[in-house]
């Protein structure tokens, strides 16, 4: 990502906003297992039993998804994508949450969970095709345990809850993870999802990446109090985790998913993090937030802190870090060539799959469409 332009104009704080949005390191209510400086710390309720391989794996995940993200941003700038929604800064929240899932669990993303997609084995090109305008996501949700992206804010929370009600009916020991943003917590449907989940004790975990903004609107417009406290009003646990601490996110999400699997019902997780880039490539964040805020958050980079921990504790060495960089380069190259070389969709394909069984009037419309386009053959 290119550096963000500095913010110069001095603007009034947003009404009611305790701006700037400070990182939560000093907030004792926030679960943290790895400090911004890369030191492991204990938490009374959450521990993480994790091997070196797994730690290195998490690091690799973080680097690769960031590289994917940077490549996608570049591709958008070059006109190869219609849009890109960057996850920059949210890698730990996504990778930590994604790696907490087990086989058989199901995740319901928004439109920004590329990091979770990665952990579920979704081919990045199947995400790129959406942002290129080729399709609405090319992966198989059931096979990957990862639903399609949902762009209508909050709708996926109800789908996740309903899916979890299905898991209950199947008597399966599985859990469902619903992703949402801080802005999404204001949608009626999201609140209904929490009400249904509580009422039916559905095995669903609501994972809210509080990246402080809904496009330009700061958190304070959505809530007066920390978001994780929303859950208390519905009668189930809410917990806030340092969203830039991949270990804490992993630990907290694992525990919540396990509770869900064991029939203890829903949990709400607020991963406190920050959107380092623009909302999407169409956005200009310099219009609404201060550069100083960004600078603060740079100090809490999710990758730097894990790297510090791995190096200092001797879990990884330069060779490892280089290999990860090489993997990232390879991934980026594959994404670039795969995206640029993506075949155009067949025009007539828009008539397919509208229904499981194509109705005669639609088939007739498609036939007209085909005939009309055939009439231009040779002309174009």
């Amino acid at each position, binding site marked *: 990502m290119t550096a963000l332009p500095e913010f110069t104009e001095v603007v009034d704080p947003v009404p009611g906003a305790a701006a700037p949005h400070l990182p939560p390191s000093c907030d004792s209510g926030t679960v943290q297992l790895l400090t911004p400086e890369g030191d492991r710390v204990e938490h009374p309720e959450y521990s993480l039993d994790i091997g070196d391989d797994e730690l290195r794996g998490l690091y690799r995940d973080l680097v690769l998804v960031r590289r994917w993200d940077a490549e996608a941003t570049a591709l958008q700038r070059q006109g190869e994508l219609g849009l890109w929604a960057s996850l920059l800064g949210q890698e730990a929240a996504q990778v930590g949450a994604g790696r907490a899932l087990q086989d058989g669990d199901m995740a319901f993303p928004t439109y920004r969970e590329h990091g979770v997609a990665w952990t579920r084995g979704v081919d990045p090109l199947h995400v790129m095709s959406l942002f290129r305008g080729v399709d609405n996501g090319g992966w198989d949700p059931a096979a990957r345990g990862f639903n399609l992206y949902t762009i209508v804010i909050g709708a996926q929370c109800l*789908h996740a809850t309903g899916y979890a009600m299905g898991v209950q009916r199947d008597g399966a020991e599985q859990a469902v993870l619903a992703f949402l943003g801080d802005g999404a917590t204001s949608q009626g449907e999201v609140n*209904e999802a929490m009400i249904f989940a509580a009422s039916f004790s559905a095995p669903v975990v609501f994972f809210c990446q509080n990246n402080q903004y809904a496009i330009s609107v700061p958190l304070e417009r959505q809530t007066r109090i920390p978001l994780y406290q929303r859950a208390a009003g519905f009668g189930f646990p809410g917990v806030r985790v340092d969203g830039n601490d991949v270990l804490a996110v992993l630990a907290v999400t694992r525990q919540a998913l396990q509770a869900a699997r064991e029939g203890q019902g829903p949990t709400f997780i607020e991963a406190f993090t920050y959107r380092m880039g623009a909302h999407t490539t169409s956005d200009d964040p310099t219009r609404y937030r201060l550069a100083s805020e960004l600078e603060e958050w740079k100090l809490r980079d999710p990758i730097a802190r894990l790297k510090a921990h791995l190096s200092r504790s001797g879990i990884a060495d330069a060779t490892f870090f280089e290999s990860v960089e090489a993997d990232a380069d390879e991934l980026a190259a594959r994404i670039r060539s795969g995206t640029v070389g993506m075949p155009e969709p067949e025009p007539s394909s828009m008539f397919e799959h509208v*229904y499981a069984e194509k109705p005669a009037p639609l088939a007739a419309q498609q036939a007209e469409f085909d005939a009309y386009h055939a009439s231009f053959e040779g002309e174009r």
Partner: protein
Amino acid sequence: MSTETLTIGKALNLGLRRAMEDDAKVVLMGEDIGRLGGVFRITDGLQKDFGEARVVDTPLAEAGILGTAVGLAMRGYRPVCEIQFDGFVFPAVNEIITQVAKIHARSQGRIPMPVVIRIPFGGGIGAVEHHSESPEAYFAHTAGLRVVAVSNPADAYWGIQQAIAHPDPVVFLEPKRRYWEKAEVDLDATPDPLFASRVVRGGDDVTVLAYGPMVKTALQAAEAAQEEGRSLEVIDLRTVSPLDLDPVMESVRRTGRCVVVHEAPTSLGLGAEIAARITESCFHSLEAPVLRVGGYDTPYPPSKLEEEYLPDLDRVLDAVDRSMGF
């Protein structure tokens, strides 16, 4: 052959029961459908026999009902959602239009979406506001949905089973003011296809189209017209979207005249689409424009006025007269 005399309401109840017996994945969801059996008792006794996991009294939230139904469908279930009254479907419209209707296409057919949305619809029961609406046009304009409106016990019995068994989402409209009307139903018959219209009375002078509660009204009009020596062909559309107009075209080519009847407001009601299509296809056969008898372009009025608002036999005959006058 096992035939029974059933009301539409009872036929739906039996149809739901049979669908639940046939497929353990069928789950009913809605407000008050469990112990109460629904405010119209359409799900009467089902929770008792199939349990609370299959007949689910939900929290009071229609978006929640439809949204969780989507998730259940993704998990392989076949949710059948009851919307308590037509006027209360609107909180669920976001889920219906942006999700239920589009997920199969969005996923290139990977995600099944066999959701049935049962809605008691239409007026004529003397109810307060929001209890007499005819919202079918909103759904018929939405690609990806199928919209069905039944008019008699046999179609109710078979149609609900067919809708549940079908892989597409179906908005299933029940003519609430006809719930108590009876007819014989052959429980072993091979049912007609669900998404097909049907000529319910042959005739030569004017083709009259109706669906749901208005089919009876159209038939009454045909009866009355006969006394005046006019022969109306009445077609029960049965499927409101996508429309099955082949039998209609065949009829109109013969009669040259057509009247469409529905309770929904006339502007952009189904009659508009049908008139446009018939005119496109049968232009040279038409001796009069397709005429529409519908609700007025006002909110559904207080119940003391609903008789004036709703199409009735006289208004159908008036349109027939006007058609013949061209």
